[in-house]
């Protein structure tokens, strides 16, 4: 059996996807299926005075129209699932359809159900709503001020929570040799997976069973929450995530829409489909980021960093989405010191409600923001003391022999060799040579820049005990069932819910490696609550470290039992057996062996099993990791800023990531590529913009600049592999590293390029206009 761990196997999910035979939610057609569409508020803040649905009801083909009032009391409100502790958190009710008041452009008001998707849109336009407009508030700092419009009762000054971790007294900063203070705005981003959200529900009135297919990253969480919202026991509610066209965090949340589809399907006793259009996605699917970070970094003239203090004012939008409170707090705050030895740190987070689309996890969720500020701050610090940005990193990075490392906010970094990743990345460029070229180019009026990002992030969410301690209303273990069929073929049922990350392949590689069974004989089953034991889904780069580890442990259990049967069959003791090349081999007796396949058949026939061993060959694991895992690496960006236009041209991009042992380098590299592009998207182009009335004015692909192929050079990627001691595979996670690392690498490079203009910092996205203005300002002042 060749070693399949570490092999770039072609993906097993691809055949259906490249031949048009995937099964995405909107592809599902059921007999008698109706279409649902939701009327959404055009106002950011208004009272609903009157809704007239009579004209919509008259449209031939319309089956039903519901308003918020029609549903009031008949279904639950949409809950938040992350109640950050000791933060005085307020959870104002979020009705599936607004009852009296709308709080953001996109808030659902009424819904229409009709025989086809054209009719449903026609009817939607005939609903007449009279609003009494209320003053809206869009910006989180404005929203906190006295006298600002109030969104919800019982949430004074719109402050949903106030959370703190760590403490650094003022005198530490007062006495410090160097203090850098800087405000960063993490702009609002729109996740925009290419598949928008969708849901289909089917109800069987005789059995009371309901199936909901939806675009979910975590169908069991959807079942958990929807069961409560709809009042359907979990025994009768099946949630299926079929092929899901990307998520990036925005398909974690449970939204009103999935609940509404379920409600309507049960009420009308016909299958119902709802598919979000792209414009709807822009205003109703959760956004990411939107945090104002006020950062203070103290240190010595020799480059030693001593203390970090941050205030994060986070815009949560109009309601608290499923995981929203955890993003700016736990996922941002605790990792804020990054990979550097900073002995003291404190983070304060104020979560604020505004008349905007709710925010929640977006690829990286908290960690890109944390990495951005520390990577920018360390460059600013280096600049202040006249040190090379590379030197200050070398000086402060945690050394290999210092792991496990307890950071100032209580996290224990599992393992790492940060300098090795940095050195490997440096081998891929020529730093000294670059600085010379940069110098020469500047003389000719060309502006080259280099930016570093030596990041660490938290992955593999996470120990359930910790989840409880930080207020997540769920566990964060993962389930795996490894079922060896009598023929020796294997079905693996995982509670993780991959949607593009390739685990149908990489998980099969884990099983193949463990059990010596060819990958072709292994099927990975995911995304169906009726087939799979409780699990928690795919987000936070947890799928491989937690879900994969659960599979590895279940495989070990299968093997343990198989060994007993093999020993019995070969009439030797278990300790005499080695498992190699898919067979149990008696040590020292070549040829005396029994294959895994033969053992499997014996397990099922059960004619002659050892005493106390039950028939069949199947094992389960509910793996709860002992700690998070901490991938790290170094990204380096080299770019040129056009002195005339301010346009940023990427010239070279090097990424060295350490996700622990790499199971499938091709798939891992793909994750890095995609992540880098998403992170650079934030650095250079993307940004959701509201006008002062709460209208989203970057609400289409015409206005919201999505990264395109021609914007990029080919990236050069490599891995170092430092195993984690936390889990049996030693793996860490690779789904978010690119996004986390690339944003500050690019911004650092742009700022480096603009050094001749006296530019210290620029707010993202670094559009040509913004860069050009900064250069003009520099030229004027020079």
């Amino acid at each position: 059996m060749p070693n399949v761990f570490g092999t770039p196997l072609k993906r097993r999910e691809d055949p259906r996807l490249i031949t048009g035979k995937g099964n995405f939610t909107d592809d599902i057609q059921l007999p008698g299926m109706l279409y649902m569409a939701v009327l959404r508020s055009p106002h950011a803040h208004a009272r609903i005075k009157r809704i007239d649905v009579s004209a919509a009801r008259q449209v031939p083909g319309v089956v039903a129209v519901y308003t918020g009032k029609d549903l009031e009391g008949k279904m639950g409100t949409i809950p938040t699932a992350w109640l950050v502790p000791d933060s005085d958190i307020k959870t104002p009710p979020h009705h599936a359809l607004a009852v009296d008041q709308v709080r953001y452009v996109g808030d659902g008001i009424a819904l229409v159900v009709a025989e086809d998707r054209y009719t449903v849109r026609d009817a939607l336009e005939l609903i007449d709503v009279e609003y009494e407009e209320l003053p809206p508030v869009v910006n989180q700092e404005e929203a906190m001020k006295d006298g600002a419009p109030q969104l919800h009762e019982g949430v004074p000054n719109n402050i949903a929570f106030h959370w703190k971790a760590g403490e650094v007294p003022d005198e530490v900063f007062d006495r410090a040799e160097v203090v850098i203070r800087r405000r960063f705005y993490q702009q609002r981003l729109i996740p925009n997976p290419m598949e928008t959200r969708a849901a289909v529900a089917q109800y069987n009135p005789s059995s009371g069973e309901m199936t909901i297919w939806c675009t979910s990253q975590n169908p069991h969480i959807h079942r958990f929450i929807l069961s409560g919202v709809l009042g359907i026991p979990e025994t009768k509610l099946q949630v299926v995530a079929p092929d899901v066209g990307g998520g990036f965090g925005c398909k974690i949340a449970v939204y009103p829409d999935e609940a509404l589809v379920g409600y309507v399907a049960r009420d009308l006793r016909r299958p119902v489909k709802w598919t979000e259009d792209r414009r709807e996605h822009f205003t109703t699917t959760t956004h990411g980021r939107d945090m104002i970070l006020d950062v203070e970094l103290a240190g010595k003239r020799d480059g030693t960093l001593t203390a970090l203090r941050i205030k994060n004012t986070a815009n949560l939008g109009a309601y608290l989405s499923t995981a929203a409170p955890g993003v700016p707090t736990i996922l941002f705050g605790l990792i804020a010191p990054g990979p550097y030895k900073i002995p003291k740190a404190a983070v304060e987070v104020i979560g604020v409600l505004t008349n905007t689309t709710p925010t929640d996890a977006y690829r990286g969720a908290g960690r890109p923001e944390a990495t951005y500020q520390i990577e920018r701050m360390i460059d600013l610090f280096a600049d202040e003391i006249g040190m090379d940005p590379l030197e200050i990193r070398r000086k402060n990075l945690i050394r290999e022999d210092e792991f496990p490392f307890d950071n100032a906010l209580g996290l224990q970094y599992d393992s790492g060799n940060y300098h090795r990743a940095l050195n490997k990345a440096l081998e891929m460029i020529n730093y000294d040579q670059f600085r010379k070229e940069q110098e020469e180019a500047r003389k000719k009026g060309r502006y080259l820049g280099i930016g570093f990002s030596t990041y660490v992030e938290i992955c593999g969410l996470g120990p359930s005990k910790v989840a409880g301690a930080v207020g997540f209303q769920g566990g964060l273990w993962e389930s795996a069932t490894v079922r060896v069929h009598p023929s020796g073929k294997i079905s693996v049922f995982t509670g993780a819910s991959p949607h593009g990350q390739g685990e149908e392949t990489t998980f099969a590689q884990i099983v193949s490696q463990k059990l010596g069974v060819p990958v072709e004989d292994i099927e990975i089953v995911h995304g169906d609550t009726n087939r799979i034991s409780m699990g928690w889904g795919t987000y936070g780069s947890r799928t491989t470290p937690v879900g994969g580890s659960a599979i590895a442990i279940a495989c070990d259990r299968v093997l343990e039992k198989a060994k007993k049967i093999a020993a019995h069959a070969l009439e030797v003791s278990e300790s005499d057996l080695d498992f190699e090349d898919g067979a149990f081999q008696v040590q020292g007796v070549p040829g005396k062996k029994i294959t895994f396949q033969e053992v499997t058949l014996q397990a099922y026939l059960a004619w002659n099993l050892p005493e106390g061993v039950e028939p069949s060959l199947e094992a389960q694991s509910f793996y709860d990791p002992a700690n998070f895992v901490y991938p790290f690496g170094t990204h380096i960006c080299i770019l040129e800023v056009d002195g005339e236009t301010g346009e940023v041209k990427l010239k070279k991009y090097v990424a060295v990531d350490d996700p622990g042992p790499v199971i499938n380098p091709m798939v891992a590299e793909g994750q890095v590529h995609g992540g880098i592009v998403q992170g650079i998207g934030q650095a250079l182009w993307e940004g959701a913009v509201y006008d002062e009335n709460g209208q989203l004015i970057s609400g289409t692909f015409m206005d919201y600049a999505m990264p395109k192929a021609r914007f990029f050079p080919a990236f050069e990627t490599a891995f170092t592999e430092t195993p984690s001691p936390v889990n049996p595979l030693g793996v860490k996670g690779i789904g978010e590293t690119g996004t986390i690392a690339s944003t500050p690498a690019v911004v650092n490079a742009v700022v480096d390029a603009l050094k001749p203009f006296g530019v210290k910092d620029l707010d993202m996205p670094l559009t040509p206009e913004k860069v050009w203005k900064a250069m003009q300002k520099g030229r004027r002042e020079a």
Partner: protein
Amino acid sequence: MRIEVRHPFSTSRKVVWKFLQDEEVLRRSLPGCRKLEEVSEGVYSAELGLNVGPVKGMFTGEVKLSELREPESYRLTMSGKGKPGEIRGDARIRLEEAEEGTVLICNAEAHVTGVLASVGQRVMGSVAKLILSQFFKAVEKEIRHSTPK
């Protein structure tokens, strides 16, 4: 969104004023006007057909003329509602004497919602200018036709 439009008229302020306040003239001159009825002093209910790039639709709403200071200035507020969203506008219109007659200066603030905001907003400014210019040109034509030189 703020819009400023200037339009020269080759006649006196008094004449321009008269035409701008004339319901019949307004009905004929407002681009896409399907209906204009005075419901009370200075308040009109109106129906306008709008065509903003990808967004087309009928808007129904109210137009109000107030703060009339003949022949210098007045205020025009409007609110309209249509399938693509809602529009609210507040315009100060000033008539200034000029060499060739009169210059009209319109300073307007407009707010839009719905598709108009998310799709149309980028082009709304220039489209609003275009619509206003069309309107003033049409008024100018009315003046020319009714005042033989």
